[in-house]
């Protein structure tokens, strides 16, 4: 087995997949419900990581950092939607306009952080931990925590979407907002909840992303955005379960490939996978091709 795939890289892959899953599910959940392509997502991750870092600096625990990042991400996303994105949508800004607005927002956030804190790296102070050895894979206790957190969050999100009334309302809104509204679903509140959830996942992902690498800078989140988008598209945009599968595939593919070639090509592999899938199935693995086809409605 070791001859075919280096098992240790599979371990890295699982960690990357966990971080990616948190981010990609958050990204796709919001896109599915609100139909706004939020290109500020990566920069919000950075901002949340910064908040988590702040808690870390003043001596907070890991759990407190995660919580702070998640709460910040949730509130920031909801506010961003309510006071920036939604007003633009109501103002009549269409598809492209909204893409530009979210991209602008990301650039503003990123450069605000850069201007305020400079181009230096922030380093999380993490207590030296033991490294565990599991069937040829190596994990630090932090990485165990990241994987555990990701699995727990994925289960919660899946249960929420499939088992609760709120989840059904979200899926109904994603499928057909007008119909959902007629059926008595308070779509505005559903959309708020979608942004809160997406933001919380974004915040968590931001904190665990920098926990794994221990240092980050103003562009870290945005650099990760491309892989998030690739994972979401791979699974079919707007499909949380698809994003999860996409994240696992890309996480493992990127890290395993890094064992064979320059590690800086990790993202290139993500891209190659994405292109192949798009050529064969434009809607992604779990997506519906008709949903992403052009239409001017």
């Amino acid at each position, binding site marked *: 087995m070791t001859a075919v795939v280096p098992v240790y890289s599979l371990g890295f892959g699982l960690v990357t997949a966990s971080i990616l899953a948190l981010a990609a599910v958050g990204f796709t959940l919001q896109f599915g419900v609100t139909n706004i392509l939020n290109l500020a997502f990566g920069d919000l991750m950075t901002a949340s990581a910064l908040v988590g870092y702040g808690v870390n600096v003043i001596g907070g625990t890991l759990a407190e950092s995660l919580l702070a990042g998640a709460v910040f991400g949730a509130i920031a996303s909801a506010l961003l939607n309510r006071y920036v994105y939604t007003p633009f949508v109501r103002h009549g800004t269409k598809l492209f306009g909204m893409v530009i607005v979210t991209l602008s927002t990301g650039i503003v956030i990123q450069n605000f952080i850069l201007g305020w804190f400079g181009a230096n790296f922030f380093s999380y102070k993490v207590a030296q931990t033991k490294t565990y050895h599991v069937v040829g894979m190596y994990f630090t206790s932090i990485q165990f925590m990241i994987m555990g957190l990701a699995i727990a969050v994925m289960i919660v999100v899946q249960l929420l979407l499939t088992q609760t009334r709120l989840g059904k309302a979200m899926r109904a809104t994603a499928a057909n907002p007008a119909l959902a509204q007629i059926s008595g679903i308070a779509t505005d509140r559903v959309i708020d909840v979608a942004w809160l959830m997406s933001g919380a996942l974004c915040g968590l992902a931001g904190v665990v992303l920098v926990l794994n690498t221990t240092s980050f800078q103003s562009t870290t989140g945005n650099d990760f955005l491309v892989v998030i988008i690739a994972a979401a598209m791979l699974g079919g945009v707007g499909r949380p379960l698809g994003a999860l599968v996409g994240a696992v595939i890309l996480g493992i593919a990127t890290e395993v490939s890094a064992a064979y070639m320059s590690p800086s090509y990790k993202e290139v592999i993500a891209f190659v996978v994405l292109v192949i899938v798009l050529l064969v199935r434009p809607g992604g693995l779990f997506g*519906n091709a*008709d949903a992403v086809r052009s239409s*001017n*409605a």
Partner: protein
Amino acid sequence: MSLNEVPNVPVQSFLEVRDLRRDFGGVWAVDGASFEAQSGCITALIGPNGAGKSTVVDLIGGALRPTSGQVLMDGRDITALKPHERARLGLVRTYQMSSEFGRLTVLENLLVGVPDQRGERFRTLVIGKRYWREQEEAVLVKAFGLMDRFAMSEKRDEYAGNLSGGQKRLLEIMRSLMAEPKLLLLDEPMAGINPTLARVIEGYLSDLAKEGLTMLLIEHELDVVDRLCESVVFMAQGKVIATGKMEELLKNTGVLNAYLAG
């Protein structure tokens, strides 16, 4: 009124739909639809909401691919053709949602209607205006003629996006006529517009039929269908329930009940 009254004139079926099926994630929107539309007259496609009428038009126009079945136009199987290829054969459609080119003027909307213009070819980049000037002039003459006929001259330089709902529908029909269609698919051209303009559009459609244009019309108002259409295809739940003349269908209480129940 009916062509069938003259036995010696063979009635040609210009459009033939054979056992068309289309599913959306396990739900059959169209489940084995077969019918024909005769040359030179208006065929109505009626049925309750969700009967699959618009899907049938999408399948005939090529916007959707059928899961199975065939579409034949003028005896030729066009099932595999893309929408723009069908349009070039003379099959033009309008949409249920208004689909004007909003930031083009009314006149420009019409000018776009002519398929395969020289000025659209890439060699216009090399040769320049002299390559297409003459044809453009002819297209303009045609567009002005249509605006005159449909009393839209005053709106010539208005952005199509600023027109009223009814004017947009009219513009769409005019734009289709620029293509000199052999078969025109009309998806509820009079829905949601004021009754006066609806009657005007009905009059235009009737004139076009007299001029020999073959049309397939989705329409909810049975009076309109009765006045305009020689033959009617009645659909429900993705299937063709009955075909025939309107009065025959009205006699058939089963059909009417299905319609009212919808």
